């Protein structure tokens, strides 16, 4: 999971996590297939970074704990 320049975008590489973020009401900007990777990445717009990170934390806890 990667936060880009000035924390404007969050890049997610897992379909399941991306799907959960959409359920939480986050808007997916792009779904793209970069040339150097073998699968899609999902780019989300960051508005409230702290809240988004808290949500990511609860998604991780539910999926992977």
């Amino acid at each position, binding site marked *: 999971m990667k*936060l880009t320049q000035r924390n404007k975008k969050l890049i997610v*590489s897992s379909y399941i996590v991306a799907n959960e973020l959409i359920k939480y009401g986050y808007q997916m900007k792009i779904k793209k297939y970069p040339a150097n990777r073998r699968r899609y990445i999902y780019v989300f717009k960051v508005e409230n970074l702290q809240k988004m990170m808290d949500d990511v*934390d609860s998604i991780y*806890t539910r999926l992977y704990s």
Partner: protein
Amino acid sequence: MNEEYFEIFPAWVSCREKNYKLILSNDIDSLAACTLLEQQTNWRTEAVMLHKYNRYAVEHYDQQPLDFFGTLNPDFKLNQCVGVDLALMNGKCFDNHVQLPDKYSLANPRSANLNTLHRINCEEYHKKYAGSTFLLVWALYGYPDDNLSDDMNMFRACVDSAYLGYFSQDFKKYMKEYLVDILEMPCLYDFLGNHSKKEFENFQKRYGLKRCIFRREDTGYLNTYINLDEINRIFRGSKINLNLKLPDGQFEKRFLCRNMKSSSMPVEKNIFTMSITKKNEFKYSIPFGEGKEFYETNAA
């Protein structure tokens, strides 16, 4: 190591009699440094931190990369441990990463790290110590620099690709300062000058030095494809007698961490490890779920 420099290192570095527990990371740099520390002190490897442990597992194909923290004993306390090649935000550690985002930031005072002690930050990233943790521990605990065979020197240069600093225009002049003046390894510096980059790369391939250490999900034991037997053969019979072997025993999961990357200083709390790997790239891991509580109550 230069005695003046030894004095600026944290005092815990010389507490050889205490029963600190070492945290192994997932590469040869950490394993070799742990072996040297076990030879010199009473400290034992009892925990492991594996970055992106699920990256090759088929059943985890669609998971985000996660970091695994496991221990041999269930009653493990984070305040008794020493991270080896791990840039801990809080607690004792040996490492070689840059940790400061700017010159006004506060560093981890218990980190035995040349970059932190020199207050190297993002703005002067090219001045960083581009060697390995293994070389740092080698120098700190007074292992010799001269009268070593070519293969031993080759191994020292290839761990964590420490030779790359010599072949990079940006790092080369600082490499001399760190290796010759601070770590007092003039023989290794000369050795780097007498060999080509290709020779180091071939050595790394021959011994699998870029391969990582992983945990078998079914048994909980550590495993690796690094050619440890061949490496031990290099040192056999010499006065150093480096005997690399993985810690024996089952590592039980204590917590998992989110593996995160960012181009600016992270805003989150409870960061377990953080390092700046390029001029503007922060890599950090944050415990989640049960790990969050464990970290909050146990943090050093």
